[in-house]
């Protein structure tokens, strides 16, 4: 292009013309003007909300998701947990044995199936519309998770109170016996739904895992002897820790929008 000597001469020549220092007043006027320019997110950004308004906003979000989640999910959860309570009562009255508690088996899987069906092309036609709103997809996901888990939690608590009253179960122990596996399995289903974005695949994996866990704990199959009994009381801290890890991993993955919008929006 040019040799070094030319370049040096040109630079020396051009350096004879100095630009003036900028006028601070002009810069201040510019900054003032720029402060009046509406920024892209300024008009859609939420204003600072009071605690009450935040609670109301959270409630509105959860309520909006009630309409989105398939009604069959609510009905199925209610029926299966009611069925679990009735069977538990029947077994208890037949032999008085407290070793087998169907509620402990059904509560986690009902919740896990519901969680797995929170997202997916077939189960959520309104997702694309919601992703176009200022509310983050992650928040929508969490709202649905809280809604479904909360619903099953209340149902299972009611079932436990009924069982404690009618069949002399220790309420605290009973609640812990299903709450820990329910938390674990729901967290796993949540992670699977974020990972695969496919409800059926998530349900199948969660069901298979849960079946193995239950068989290992209750049936004492020799083939499953090598698998640790995660329903044992001693394994509860591990289940809680695993659930926490699964939720954290799922949230980190969900933060990457493309991971759970790829099939619906791209």
């Amino acid at each position, binding site marked *: 292009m*040019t040799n070094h000597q030319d370049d040096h*001469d040109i630079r020396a020549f051009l350096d004879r013309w100095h630009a003036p220092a900028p006028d601070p007043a002009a810069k201040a006027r510019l900054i003032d003007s720029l402060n009046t320019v509406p920024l892209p997110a300024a008009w859609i950004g939420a204003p600072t909300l009071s605690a009450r308004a935040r609670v109301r906003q959270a409630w509105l979000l959860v309520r909006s998701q009630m309409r989105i989640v398939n009604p069959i999910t609510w009905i199925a959860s209610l029926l299966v947990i009611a069925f679990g309570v009735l069977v538990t009562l029947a077994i208890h009255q037949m032999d008085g044995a407290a070793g087998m508690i169907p509620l402990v088996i059904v509560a986690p899987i009902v919740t896990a199936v519901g969680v797995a069906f929170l997202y997916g092309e077939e189960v959520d036609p309104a997702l694309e519309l919601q992703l176009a709103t200022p509310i983050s997809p992650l928040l929508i996901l969490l709202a649905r998770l809280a809604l479904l888990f909360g619903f099953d939690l209340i149902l299972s608590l009611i079932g436990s109170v009924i069982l404690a009253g009618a069949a002399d179960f220790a309420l605290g122990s009973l609640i812990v016996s299903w709450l820990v596996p329910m938390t674990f399995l729901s967290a796993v289903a949540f992670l699977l739904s974020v990972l695969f974005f496919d409800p059926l695949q998530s349900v199948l994996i969660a069901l298979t895992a849960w079946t193995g866990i239950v068989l290992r704990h209750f049936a004492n199959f020799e083939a499953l002897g090598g698998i640790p009994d995660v329903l044992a009381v001693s394994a509860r801290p591990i289940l809680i820790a695993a659930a926490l890890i699964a939720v954290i991993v799922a949230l980190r993955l969900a933060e990457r929008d493309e991971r759970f919008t790829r099939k619906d929006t791209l």
Partner: protein
Amino acid sequence: MIADETLARRVQNGDRLAVDPLVERHYSPLIGYLYRMTGGDRALAEDLAHETFMRAITNIAQYQHPRPFKAWLYAIATNAARNHYKSADQRRTANTDHDLDDVPDDHPIDAPLIEGEEAAAVIAALDALPDHQREVVLLYYYQQFSLQEIAETLHIPLGTVKSRLSIGISRLRERMKAMDYGR
């Protein structure tokens, strides 16, 4: 130091605090560029710099992260300067014999800031270049842009930047010889 591109992305996301660092970094060099683009009209350079930043922030959604913000900003500035002369028909035509004596009384050059005849000679030499060559020379020598940055700023191929710079330098050398400057 946070990269310009990161700051621009923050502005895109509505972070007003990211605007000031961008202004602090680029205001002074941009004034220098526009001052020379306008042949030494400080008031006009300030107006164009004002317009450039206003356009950039107003249209920040059009900035494509992670492309260089500086090139995007200077492209806006260059267009602002071109449009000014196009619309007002104020662009002086190239005049190879231009020197300080030819400058009329109402010429916009900021006389106190021009350091004597030497600065006037530089102005005359640059003014003799066609617009497209002068832009490349100004960006390369005064703004310290790389050839690639110039190509991105002016939206022209790298080869075109090289040829414009080469021809521009040749013409400057001719002017320097004519003025008996240098060798």
